């Protein structure tokens, strides 16, 4: 229970994330920093980006992002800088590389498969009308239950 409280304090601690003193003077740079922050994971939190997190590490990461931006890095360079140090675990948006292709293509592939099966089954359905397998008594009872009005 103590551990749980500790985890929760780390995770959902509510005093807020981006502090006034972190904000850059240049609004364009600050906007880029915010965009980047939303895609970066607070490493000690669970499923929280550094923009929303209150953890000290998240603050350090926010400051690091801003430092790199002020130093003139492009967005890609900032991301590369962070993944070099923390691994791809820090990216909330998994890259489209290697085995991650499975993740990204799972939905579209499943959609094609599902749509294909649906079309084939519907076509076949349209051709064959199977016989009625209820005996008359059952059919009468079923109709009574359904109270068919049409």
């Amino acid at each position: 229970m103590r551990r749980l409280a500790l985890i929760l304090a780390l995770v959902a601690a509510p005093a807020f994330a981006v502090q006034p003193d972190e904000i850059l003077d240049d609004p364009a740079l600050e906007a880029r920093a915010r965009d980047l922050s939303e895609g970066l994971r607070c490493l000690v939190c669970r499923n929280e980006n550094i923009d929303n997190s209150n953890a000290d590490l998240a603050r350090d990461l926010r400051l690091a992002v801003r430092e790199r931006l002020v130093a003139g890095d492009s967005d890609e360079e900032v991301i590369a800088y962070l993944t070099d140090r923390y691994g791809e675990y820090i990216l909330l948006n998994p890259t489209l590389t290697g085995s991650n292709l499975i993740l990204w293509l799972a939905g579209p592939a499943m959609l094609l498969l599902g749509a294909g099966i649906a079309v084939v089954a519907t076509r076949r359905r349209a051709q064959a009308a199977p016989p009625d397998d209820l005996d008359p008594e059952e059919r009468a009872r079923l109709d009574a239950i359904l109270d068919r009005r049409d």
Partner: protein
Amino acid sequence: MLIEFAHFALILALVMAALQCVLPLVGAWKGWRGYMEAAAPAATSQFLLLSFAFAVLTWAFVTSDFSLRLVTLNSHTAKPMIYKIAGVWGNHEGSMLLWCLILALYAALAAWFGGNLRETTRARVLGVQGAISVAFVSFLVFTSNPFERLAVPPMNGEDLNPLLQDPGLAFHPPFLYLGYVGLSMAFSFAVAALIEGRVDAAWGRWVRPWTLAAWLFLTIGIALGSWWAYYELGWGGFWFWDPVENASFMPWLIAAALLHSAIVVEKREALKAWTILLAILAFGFSLIGAFIVRSGVLTSVHAFATDPERGVYLLAITGVFTGGALTLYAARAGGMQAKGVFGLASRETALVANNVLLAVSCFVVFVGTVWPLIAEMAFDRKLSVGAPFFNAAFTPFMVALAALLPIGAVMPWKRARPGRVVGELWGALVLSIALGAFVWVMQTGGSILAPVGAVLAAWLVLGTIADLRLRAGRGDLSSRVMRLVRLPRADWGKAVAHAGFGVTIFGIAALTAWQVEDIRVAQEGETFTVGPYDLTLQGVRQLDGPNYVTTLGTIDITRNGRAVATLEPEKRFYPVAQMPTTEAAIDNGVLRDLYVVIGDPQDNGGWAVRTYIKPFANWIWAGAIIMALGGVLSLSDRRHRVAAGAAKAPRRAVPAE
């Protein structure tokens, strides 16, 4: 003593569950009527025993009986009464007891109102439901006993997690469980049908109300959780694609698909095998959800029982029931013969498209949720899958769903004439696109999100109106109104729920696209401007609450010199749990929420203050409530009441129409 009685009642409930499982299944197999008839009293007594156990546990929380380990760990004498009661299910053991109670409640309802079912079907449904009860009640008794005593009771308890001490969250779990567990009924019906080897229209009609009920409870439960996150976590996020949120969202998506495909079974006797599969998957995802939340495999904000033994047990339950049912499905589903014949352009095809989109979107959420686990085990990559992935991979399916929905809704059964469908919806389409264009012009720059959301929302709402107009038919006004009034409630439910979906879509799009944020240090007495509003930090006070201390800021908000609201955001600290929480102050409005949070005092004086203008935020949850209302309307349809046992009463003569 009462506690020990309750513990004993729990064990007796397990025995009753075992009887409810074995006797009717054997009876239905052998054709022994007496065995089959034992199911109903077993279900009733199991429900009564679990009710007693739950009542005793609640009483222990209300009276702060700290000789109970669970009460000590999750309660405190200073806690307000409502949270003492909510504390019963604010922990693993108590919430599991609630789960079992609801499971028994559904079984008892099926026993009480199942008179209209074939005798063997009813016996088998109750038998399968009993088997699920055996699994969960034994899980409770052997690994998660809520009635464990402490040898030396402490003077006071350790308090409930302060984040859970909130009205929105107090009722979030019961609704979710009513939903999760409600899907067990669809599951039991599916397994019973597989054992019997037949599915007919009556089966579809029977499954639908249970699925509808489960779906609408899930809708309310998820909306409550999202609403809570919005005002409690301090930055107004409403959905985080957290594994636990996904755990509740996946059964919701499948249940939505199931309640549509069950219509096809009922009306057209088609899609039988697919509907059975959905019924199995819906409860399967409920079980996977329970496993994700309680095993801590995918640790998240909510995980409150990260215990390997429990995880293994829950995984076993998930595996046995889902795997067993799918095996049975593989053996038997081939025999489900479809009757209804339909063309490629028809209501049936539209509902198939609905099912494909919902099922695939659920699959995307599932893959995204478990991918970090798979990537680490199979590919040795330690990675994260967060909101950006889900937003990108999931949203297109919802856009497609919303785009197709009004077309499907007006299509007739069997065979539609595309020209006629276009004719009915032409006006709605033009108006929706016009509205989207208007939004596009009105917003200065900004993303495409809001116009798209506006088009889809208008399309859904106007499409619903076009559908109702079509149903009203031709003729003079009074005969049209009469026809509308006489429409079955299920049709009204459909219209309301679909419109609610549109409202939610617009709320999400507008909030995401147009939110305004301001972060600053404000001195006491200072006035600052956010959007069209002027905010003045009047003062900051320290106050004592019942079980917390609070820092409370007072902020006056004006617009063009006219007072709009006075907001009092708080920062609380709960000394017993040693936890801080923020209580954002929100001025709710139809068109926007004003959302103010107070932060830490600054070194050079003043306070950190965060202000948001959140446009159309409440539409998100309003839409969810409207969707649930549609579910209620549909549930109150006469046909379901007939199917749910009212047919035993002498039937009224129905005039031919």
